[in-house]
């Protein structure tokens, strides 16, 4: 009998403990705020894998933001800590990482990962847990078409807005200088898909005939056949949907082998990686290549100079677009928490839906889908530097190289 009694007590104690634990989990709803100690922010990033060269600066951008924040007293009078997991650019891993950050690590806040491919599933995890999700990159339509309440994009435009400044420049050219034909090779990725489709639609409307439009698999290394077909078609313009520097360099190298240099060349994303892109394609071969970015190191928006200075001091090189986008996401989160005065996720989302935030890419305000309204920047590699050619307010040069010189 005594045995049985002790066993009964043990069962009762275990049951009570389990009930308390379950209650604690149920009440948590993803927020681990204890009211004291540091505020933790959970992030997953592809720090290894094919886009590691782009996500490392993003991580550094987040760290610069947190360091500045902590120096200025943190958030709500508490210091802030980042809890960062590596997802290796894998969609399954990014989902398990954000689930882990919310349910096991019990972080107070979240910040977004890199690329549309990863932000697409990651934002679903955040939405399901009713947690604010400010993403530094990932502008594909399908991310915003789901009507999420907690999702916000920290760039001035989405993938659909990316061609705008380049198209304006094409429209500004005299008719005889405009491209007559164009090729559209693109990586099969939710971000580049939208952008390149938009390019093709708008350029076709301007009378530019498409001579090549194909997608290639994300792990493509051999661009020779793609370059060979494009070289035979001899388009005036090549618009390349490139996710990583490896991508952009792969097609450039294949074009070189085919002795083909288009008069005008635009690549998404890859040329903005100012550290790795020139190394991968050869510094002289960057000359005249266009890209679109969200941010300029020389912009006059409040805080930008301090950001560039802090980043350069911390990491010994100038920040990239990806670093700036991560910093911007941090600024958005910071503004929401400071203005709400707490960590209630619903209130944070409501505040962002109704207010503008001053950031280093300009003032950002969002529609009900989390889509901002603003101008992306048209940039071109000139003399070994990424120069900004439009819009006018953000220009670092008035010169535009056209046509692009041949490969060196």
């Amino acid at each position, binding site marked *: 009998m005594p045995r049985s009694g002790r066993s009964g007590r043990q069962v009762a104690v275990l049951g009570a403990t389990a009930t308390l634990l379950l209650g604690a989990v149920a009440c948590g709803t993803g927020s681990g705020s204890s009211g004291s100690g540091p505020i933790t922010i959970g992030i997953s990033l592809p720090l*290894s894998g094919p886009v590691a060269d782009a996500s490392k600066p993003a991580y550094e951008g987040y760290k610069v933001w947190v360091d500045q924040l902590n120096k200025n007293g943190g958030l709500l009078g508490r210091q802030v800590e980042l809890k960062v997991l590596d997802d290796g650019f894998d969609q399954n891993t990014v989902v398990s990482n954000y689930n882990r950050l919310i349910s096991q690590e019990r972080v107070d806040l979240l910040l977004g990962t890199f690329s549309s491919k990863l932000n697409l599933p990651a934002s679903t995890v955040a939405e399901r847990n009713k947690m604010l999700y400010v993403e530094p990159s990932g502008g594909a339509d399908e991310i915003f078409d789901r009507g999420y309440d907690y999702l916000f994009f920290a760039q001035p435009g989405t993938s659909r807005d990316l061609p705008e400044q380049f198209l304006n420049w094409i429209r500004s050219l005299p008719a005889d200088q405009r491209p007559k034909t164009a090729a559209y090779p693109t990586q099969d990725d939710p971000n580049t898909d939208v952008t390149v489709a938009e390019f093709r639609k708008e350029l076709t409307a301007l009378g530019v005939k498409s001579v090549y439009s194909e997608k290639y*698999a994300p792990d493509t*290394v*051999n661009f*020779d*056949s793609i370059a060979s077909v494009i070289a035979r078609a001899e388009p005036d313009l090549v618009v390349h949907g490139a996710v990583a520097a490896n991508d952009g360099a792969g097609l450039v190298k294949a074009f070189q082998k*085919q*002795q083909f240099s288009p008069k005008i060349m635009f690549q998404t994303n890859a040329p903005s990686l100012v550290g790795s892109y020139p190394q991968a394609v050869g510094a002289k071969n960057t000359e005249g290549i266009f890209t679109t970015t969200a941010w300029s190191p020389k912009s006059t928006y409040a805080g930008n100079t301090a950001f560039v200075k802090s980043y350069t001091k911390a990491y010994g090189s100038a920040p990239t677009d990806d670093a700036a986008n991560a910093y911007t996401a941090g600024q958005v989160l910071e503004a929401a928490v400071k203005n709400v005065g707490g960590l209630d996720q619903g209130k944070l989302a409501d505040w962002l839906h109704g207010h503008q935030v001053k950031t280093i890419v300009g003032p950002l305000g969002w529609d009900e889908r989390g889509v901002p309204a603003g101008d992306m920047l048209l940039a071109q590699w000139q003399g070994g530097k990424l120069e900004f050619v439009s819009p006018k307010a953000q220009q670092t040069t008035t010169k535009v190289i056209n046509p692009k010189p041949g490969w060196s």
Partner: protein
Amino acid sequence: MTALLQAIVLGLLIGGVYSLAASGMNLIFGVMRVVNLAQGGMLILSAYLTFTLWSSTGLDPLLLVVVTTPCLLVVGWVTYYLFIERSRTTDPSMALVTTFGLTLVTKGVIALIWGNQPRSVTPGYANRSFDVAGLLLPQAQVYACLVAVAVLTCLYLLLRRTWLGRSIQATAASSEGARLIGIEVRNTWAAAYAIGVAAAGAGGALLSVLYPFMPSSADHWIGLTLSIVVLGGMGSLAGSVLGALVIAVAESLTSTYVSPDWAAAVPFMAIILVLVIRPQGLLGTRLREDMSRA
């Protein structure tokens, strides 16, 4: 017609390099029945080594195979005694896991030393081509293919005409029999593994000239080389050459006439076809491998 010929020629040229990249994996499997998933990492390690030597000395990257090959030979030798020998004597799946782990470690070490940025090796001829009757033959591809053929010939002669090569063949046929006739089987296995890795050392130097690469590029080459070996026939050196040419030409034609999106699937479709139609591969002889330890 020119487009078709161009696609075939580009496929054949790159097929020569693929066959060198896959030959090491095939040799290792043929001798010790280990599917060496570490080959992808070794290829990329060699590519980074070539990049460093080329950028610091300015020497021709294709000729740097004479440096990268012995370097990787040493790496292969050391890794065999440190990791492979222990794992392959326990269970075949353990060897598979060990070599996969070696790839992860290699990628990590490369990232620590060189960073995660993509690199390219761009000698003066990287952007030049031979124009042969309207067909453009990229010089880098032509030279790389020639070097690959030369290295493969050396590998063939090593296996056929030298005492070490004959020891390797004897050990592959029957390790017990080899032991009976006085061959140091343990050292022969180590030599075969090291030579296999050294072949990746030569292949990596050639790949560095043809494509940009980064640590994660290893994953692509694991899949590709494994597909080539399975298609050609595991353990058959001639099979890996034939498999490489078939896959490279099929990739090139698919990219040109179907879609580049489908080209990446070609190696894996080839594996499925082989498993269904001819499980031993194009030039393989065994229907089922006895994976038990000799």
